[in-house]
């Protein structure tokens, strides 16, 4: 199948996951927010968040076990870029209250102005950063 079809199916699954979380638990299925909760909450409020994160790992593993087509190559970035990248993604999604799932899918789907603004800014910042890295700095 064409990558566009896989992308559309995968995207629909992300939408279904968001609707499931909203309809059953009444929560936004935002990965950065739920990950933060695994560190700051306790008891059963922590447990459901831990299970959500564990689910992401399980769900990521299943297609790769069924077909090597779904096993992505290791990232090309070196250790320094990975450390700085991880810190920036954590700091940025923490300050900005969300990431691609929370703002990009859940937030825009409920027409939240904060999420629309955040998504436009982080997409713009990412496009600009890749341009600077690849075409100006040649990293």
């Amino acid at each position, binding site marked *: 199948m064409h990558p*566009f079809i*896989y*992308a559309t199916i995968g*995207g*629909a*699954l992300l*939408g279904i*996951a968001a*609707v499931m979380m*909203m309809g*059953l*638990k*009444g929560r936004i299925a935002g*990965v*950065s927010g739920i*990950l933060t909760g695994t*560190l700051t909450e306790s008891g*059963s409020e922590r447990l*459901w968040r831990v*299970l*959500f*994160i564990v*689910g*992401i790992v*399980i*769900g*990521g*593993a299943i*297609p*790769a076990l069924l077909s090597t087509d779904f096993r*992505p190559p*290791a*990232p090309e*970035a070196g250790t320094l*870029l*990975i450390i700085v*990248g*991880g*810190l*920036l*993604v954590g700091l*940025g*999604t*923490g*300050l*900005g209250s969300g*990431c691609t*799932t929370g703002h990009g*899918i859940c937030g825009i*789907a409920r027409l*939240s102005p*904060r999420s629309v603004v955040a998504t436009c*800014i*982080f997409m713009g*910042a990412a*496009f600009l*950063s890749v*341009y600077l*890295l*690849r075409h100006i700095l040649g990293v």
Partner: protein
Amino acid sequence: MFNRRTGVLITALASGTTVGLGLAISGMNNTERVLGFLDLAGQWDPTLAFVMGSGLVVAFIGFKFVLKNSAPLFADAFSIPTRTDIDKALVIGAILFGAGWALVGYCPGPAIAGLSYGYSAPLLFVATMIAGLLLAKRVGKLL
């Protein structure tokens, strides 16, 4: 049927697993593909636009349906963010997130899903991402 607490735990595991499946099937877990999408000036790979497009359509329609209920099935009320102000933390946070995403090609979900492939990169990325999330708690108070 099971009680509410069990329902929440099953919901969380099922929703998280669906996120992982969606990320793996769509190609979002492939940092090369993500960077190809973010590289407008290079050989632009539009694939990931389909991920966000279809995710948004499904979530938009689905939210309309489930939010017609007076409450979610396993909780007393919907916990939906109510803020509408565009503050400094939102703008600065989004800029930093976008820049960090561009460095490796990982946003939070794919980095976590990437833990299942046995590479060291996602492990290091998730560890530093958690450090960043904790740091944000302190930095947020200064803004």
